[in-house]
Structure formats: C-alpha cells, structure tokens
C-alpha cells in the first residue's frame, strides 16, 4: 500500500476542542434564548395544559382575560400551563413545597381536593366577592375554602349522531346502564381510565352513585358485565381520538357541552348528542367543579388573593363558556346561544348529592382497587 492512500490525520486534541467549542456556543445560545424574560416579580399561575385552550384565539386569551388585572395592579401574570392535568399540577406543587414558585393554582376539582396532598399545598382563602358564586357549587367543591369554584361541567355519555340515533336505537333517549350493558352497546363505548383522567373518574362515580344509591345494587356488577367489551383508554384525548376516527365507537364519556362546541365550531346542527343516564323517569349527571386556590407559602400572597377575587368577576367568567367549554360559576354571566345545545344543570338531577364528600374521600382508593380487580381478571 502506498503512503498516499492513508487518509490525513487530524490532531485528536483539535477535534475535541472543536467539538467542545461548538457545544459551548450552542448551549450558550440556547441559554440566552430561553432565559426567563420580563420583570423578576410576576404572579405565577399554575394550571393544566388545556386551560382556556378551546376558544377562537387561544394564543391571545391570557392577555384578553387577565390584561385588565395586569394594568390595574401593574404586575405581569404568567399562566403556566403544565404539560399535565390537575393531578400532575398538584404533584409538581408537592415537589416544590420547600421552595414554591407559583402563587395561584387553577383546576383542582371536587374529587382531587378531597385528597390530603392537595390540601397540603394550598392555603384556605375565602374571596371577598364569594357571593357571586352559587352556594351549592361551594358546597360541592370545598366548604373549607382551600379552593374556590372557577367553572363547572356535567360529565355524560355523548354519542355520534352519524353512527347511532333515536331511529336506529330508540333507547338513546332514555339510556340506562343496563341498556349500555349489552354486548353491542358496551363494545361501542369508549371511556377514560378512572386512574388517569378526572372525566373517567367522574364516570366511575356516576355508575357507583346510580347502582349503590338509586338502584340499591352492587356497583361492581355492571363493570364485570361490560369488562372485555368497553374500551378504556388513558385520557380524554385518546378517547376522543378513537371515538372520532373509529366507526365502531358510538359513545364516549365527555362533557355535556360537546354538542354546543360542535354547533359553535361547525356552525351547523351538532353531530353529537348527549345521553345523560336515565333511571325511573329522571336523567342524571355527575357535576365536576373546578376550583382556584392559593398556593401555600407562595411568593406574592396579597396579589394572589386579589387575583382569585378577580377570577370570580365577569371580566374573567364571561370568557369561560366559549374558551373552556365549561359553565361559568358567576351566575350573573349570560351564556352564549350555542349553549342551548349543551346539557344544562336544570335538565338533570345532580348525582353529587347522592355521594357525600366524606364517602368519596373514605372510599376512593378502595373503589379504584376494586375496579382494578374487575379489570385485571
């Protein structure tokens, strides 16, 4: 082999140095790019990923909703949508317990607040304008005022009218759990895992309330019957995805505002309809109330309290319906016309009244364990 065939050698130390320089420059550039901007002292609000994400212009929603407060108090507000749901938000607050960063948290619902760790990261606070909120919502969410109601929604079965309707299946008008228990119907239902999704948990509580309190039967019966047929997916996203793409999935567990959203976004008659659970002449639904709370030992408590008060006023509450697709808790706010397609609280009996807070707090883990046993058999 002639010497000319050997490739030229670079000095390894040069290669290492070159690589080190490139890495350093890249890291420095990135560090500068993501360096937190704005004033050092701002009000930080932790919430879940889809907070106010469903409106016409989710990109500017924060400045429209919270802009007046920022002007009035001359402070910047940062709405930090953590890439998780409310349980994940609490988990983060627990890890930050020693050095809290957030001042306020939005999105803790009436089941999550029953768990001791949620209360451990919050400081009870009663807003001065609490009279704007219906007493029944406060009673449903948290009489101890760790959290104050922010919005609420009704969790129900929703069906696709293109796949099933009152002509093909008359029972959808008055749908009972036993209707849903047939192989055909159970196979067409897709719901969220109650461990991983508050919507799925609300459906489990719906079923427990109906069987234990209305029918006086063992709630495990229905789940044992549908196990193997009903499709259980991790979260609302996955459920909605499968329901909207699979022709065989007629029902999903979602919110009673889905038809209103469908009407609003397509500007035509909704393609989805609500089928609240039926029993002995009445319809029923579980109510989810989401709350706003003060983070314990947060950096700016005074400002945070003013912010919570502000969130109950119509300046914020009037945006809830079309951006959050939940009902505002402020009863002075008028609902948009699309909401005539939504399931209203007046249309149904609220199941929460049948399952007292103390009973849920005491039994939640047990119920989930029993649900696991049914589903892992």
């Amino acid at each position, binding site marked *: 082999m002639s010497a000319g065939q050997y490739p030229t050698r670079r000095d390894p130390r040069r290669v290492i140095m070159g690589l080190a320089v490139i890495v350093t420059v890249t890291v420095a550039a990135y560090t500068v790019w993501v360096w937190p901007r704005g004033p050092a002292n701002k009000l930080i609000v932790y919430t879940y990923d889809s907070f106010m994400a469903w409106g016409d212009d989710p990109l500017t929603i924060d400045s429209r909703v919270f802009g007046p407060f920022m002007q009035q108090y001359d402070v910047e507000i940062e709405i930090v949508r953590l890439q998780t749901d409310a349980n994940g938000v609490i*988990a983060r607050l627990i890890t*930050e317990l020693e050095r809290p960063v957030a001042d306020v948290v939005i999105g803790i619902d009436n089941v999550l607040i029953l768990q001791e760790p949620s209360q451990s990261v919050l400081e009870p606070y009663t807003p001065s304008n609490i009279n704007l909120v219906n007493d029944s919502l406060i009673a449903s969410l948290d009489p101890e005022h760790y959290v104050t109601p922010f919005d609420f929604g009704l969790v129900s079965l929703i069906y696709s009218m293109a796949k099933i309707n009152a002509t093909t299946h008359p029972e959808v008008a008055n749908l009972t759990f036993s209707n849903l228990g047939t192989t055909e119907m159970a196979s067409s239902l897709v719901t969220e895992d109650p461990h991983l999704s508050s919507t799925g948990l609300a459906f489990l509580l719906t079923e427990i309330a109906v069987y234990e309190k209305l029918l006086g039967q063992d709630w495990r019966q229905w789940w044992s019957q549908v196990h193997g047929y009903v499709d259980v997916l991790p979260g609302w996203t996955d459920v909605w995805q499968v329901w909207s793409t*699979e022709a065989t999935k007629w029902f999903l567990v979602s919110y009673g505002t889905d038809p209103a959203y469908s009407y609003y976004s397509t500007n035509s008659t909704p393609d989805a309809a609500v089928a609240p659970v039926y029993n002995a002449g009445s319809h029923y639904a579980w109510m989810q109330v989401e709350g706003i709370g003060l983070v314990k030992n947060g950096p700016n408590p005074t400002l945070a309290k003013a912010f919570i008060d502000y969130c109950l006023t119509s300046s914020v509450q009037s945006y809830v319906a079309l951006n959050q697709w939940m009902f505002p808790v402020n009863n002075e706010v008028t609902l948009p016309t699309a909401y005539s397609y939504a399931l209203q609280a007046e249309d149904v009996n609220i199941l929460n009244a049948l399952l007292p807070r103390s009973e849920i707090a005491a039994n939640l883990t047990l119920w989930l364990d029993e649900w696991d046993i049914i589903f892992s058999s």
Partner: protein
Amino acid sequence: MNRHSLMGHLALASPLVLLMCFLVYPVADVLGQGLFSGTGTSFYDVVVSPVTQRTFTFTVIQAALSTALAVLLGLPGAFLIVRLRFRGKSVIRAAMIIPFVLPPIVVVVGFLQMFGAFGILDSLMMAITGSPVSVINLAAGLPGIVLAHAFYNIPLVVLMVSASLERLNPEVEESAELLGASHFQNLRRIVLPHIIPSLLASAVLTYLFCFTSFPIVLALGQGSYMTLEARIWYAFRYFDYGEASSLALIQILVTLSLAYSYVRLGRMRQQGIAPTSNAKQVGLRDLNRVQVVLILAYLALLAFLVAGPIAAVVRSSIYDPLTRSYSLAGFENLLSAGTGGGLVPLVNSAFYATMSTLFAVALGIPLAFAHRGSKNPAASLASIMALLPLGVSAITLAYGLMRAIVVPLGLSSNPWPVIIVAQTIIGLPFSARSIEIALRSIDPALLDQADLLGASRLQKLFFVELPLLAPGILVGAAFAFAMAIGEMSATLFIALPQNVTLAVAIYQNLGVRKFVEAGAGALVLVVTCLVAFLTIDRMTSGSSGGTL
C-alpha cells in the same frame, strides 16, 4: 500511579459518578421517602396484593413474548442488511429506527388504523372472506400489546445484531466452507457465537424496554392489562408514594438481577476474537429462487408490521379527519414561532436530543471501556449501572430529579438542563451497550500493533479504536437520539411550557383536535431522525474506511 493511568481512571469513573448524582441519588431519595415515611400503602401490603401479583405476572409474560417476537422477526433483517447488497441500503437502515422515535400515542393510532377492527388488515380479511362484520382485531389486548412492542423493538435487534455481523471476518466462514462445513454448521459454529453478545444485548434491552412499557399497555390494554410501570404511574397520581416506591423498588430489583445475569452470561461467552474485518456481501442475483422468495416474503411481513403504522402517520400529516379533506396547515404551524406554533418544540427537541446524544455517547464510551475484559467488580458495576436507567421508571426518575436537583438548585422556572440530564440517562443503556459490543469485536492484535508503532493512548483511541467502534457508536447514538427525541414521561413532568418538545406537542395537538398539526409534528420527528441517522452514517462510514 502515573499521570496517564490517573487520567484513564478518572475518565472511566466519570460516568459512574454522574450516574450516582443524577440517577441513584434522586431515585433513592424518592424511594426512601416513599418506603419509610409511612405515607400510603406499605411494601408488605403492596407485595401481597393480588392486583400487584397479577400485574407482575402479566408484565413478565408480555415482555417475554414481545422479546421473542422482536428477536424472531429482527434476526433475518440483520442478516439481510449485512449480507445482501442492494440500492438504498443506508436509507432502509436509517428508516429502521423510525418506530423507536414515534410517541406512543402516534403508534397506537397507527396500529388501530392498520390492525384494529375495520382497519386495513381487517378490511382486507373482510373482503377475502366476504364477511360483513369485523374478522380480526390485532390492535387490542395481549396480541396488540405484543405486536406494538415488537414494532418498537425489531429495529433494536436488527441494528445491534447487524452492527456486530459487519465485523465478522468473511475469511473464517470461507475457511470453514473449504473444510467442508455445511451452511447450517457454519451458522451454528461460527456466525451464532459471533453474534451471541449482540443478540443477548438487544434481547435484554428489548425485554427491559417492554418490562417498563406503559403508554402502549395502557392504550391497547383496554384497562384490563397493566404493567408495574403503569401501576407506579397510577400510584403517583393518587399520591400513594408508598405503593409507587414499593413497585419501583420491585422493578429495580428485577432489572438488577437481569442485568447481573446478563453480565455473568457475557463473561462466560467471552472468547477469542477473529481478526477485525468487513463482512462479505452478495447481490440478489447470486441467490437461488427459494432464497429470493423467502426474502421477499420476509420483507412483505416486515413492511406490513413496520411500514404500515408509519404510512398511517404520513397520511395523518396532511389528512384532517374532521373536515375529511387534505391540508398543509400542519406544516405551516410547524414554522410559526409564536405560542402554540411548532417552531419552539422543534428547536427544543433538536437541541435536547442532540445534547443528550452527545452526552450519552461521551459517557457510553468510558462505560464500555470500564466493562471490557477485566474481571474486577468495577467492570460489573459499570455494566449494571449502564442498564439501570432502563429499569428505573421514567416517572420515578422525573419525580426524583425534581425533588433532588431542580427544586434545591432553584431551577424550577428554567428546568431545561435537567431535561437533558433525564434524556441522557434514558439513552445511556443503548449507547453504552452497543459501544461495548463493538469494543468486544476489536482484534487486540491491532491495538498491540499500534502500541508497537509508538501510538500514544489518545492516538490509539482516536485513530484505531474509535474508527473501529464507529458502527457501534453509530447505532448507539441513533438509539440514544431516538430515545431522547421520543421521550415523554420524564419530559412531561419536568418541562415548563417553554420547554415543550415535539413529542409532547404532538400529544397536546391531538388533545385539542388539531390532527394535521399532530401528524405533521410526527412526520417531522420521523424525518429529523432519518436525517440525523443518515448524517451519522455518512460521517462514520467515512472514518472507518480509513482504518481498515
């Protein structure tokens, strides 16, 4: 101790020290808190619970089945990649990595469209049998989980085994043939012993990968099937730190014993190494008809299993199921820089994944060297430590990093360095393992020659070892990159909105019904990995050509 050997020891010890700080300490902190502070279920109650036992059994069985299927389907692919000469091989090889980078939710959707009820396979079967109802649904329950895991891990087997096959000296086989060995004898006595380390390594990685899998299991298991990892996730969500830590501890113990037996097995297998070389290749034309038919049948099977779900991803980037129309809105979104745009996640993903790949390789090389040859306990420790990240649940790691690193250091409002740490740790088993395999196939005679010719340690490393390790580094880097860019569980927990990665953004876009945006994101993820892989391929093939 002279300066050189001190430097050497420091280089070898640095990955272990870093793993102690960023893996062992944070995880031990969480486990200690969970097990001993008395919050939640006790270890005893967790172990005796029938749900735990059933979960454990299922976890073990599904991982074994998935590994068997991945090895069975991956092994022929490895041979084809190495032995068969065909056009576009580097692209095919690069494309093999794609399944690894896809976020689980995208895989699930692709699987449902391909193998689910009324999916492509089912429609085909319905047309053939003339049945009006669904005939076959492979995207649910145990078959769905095992198939999806195989889809994820076939690339691992193919690429790791082919990297080692490439270093099998053709002269050995030729001599055997001259001496009258049959094809089968050749395979059994020469080829198999040569690829056993890489086969074992890829099987162990696959097994651990499936053992700790959870998004796939949750999505395709219909609530009936759970892995330990899924239960850890459940427990964390309900703040049952006792249960979460107990299950995480069980998972770590299983991983450690697997890693230990793997190391023991590896030692027993160690044997003389044939002179380093490049594999011989044949063209399709040189094969007989039976062989060609077999190869085509295998490729068709692989195309169906691997390419099917990928095709579904490509289609989803331009087809909106809501409006039932085609649109390029997804790609426009990727170029928009504002909040909700795809540019920030794209830059984040590229930056985090590139950095963690560099670190994973930089740490993987000393880990591989520490493991080599010597029978001291440090070598075993290095090897076991390199596998440990696979057995630590991602959520436990993320939780530990938050508690032990992010919050005490005041990084809560700017946590990106820790995301890189987490992604490095998750990619490390893959880089360390494949580099170690490559290191084993280096002929010691070559190093002795370099010594004789007066090469310094650094020169030997740069001009002899690293070029020879190139295929192993390439595969290791590719998997580390893929693991990092597709990682979701730990990133989700640590990241603030400005740290969102593409994988996370895809999930969120699906959540707000932006299907084309999600599809476009997935496609970009696929293309990025393809380009990255091809680039590394080009770079390394250039350098190894110079050595041999």
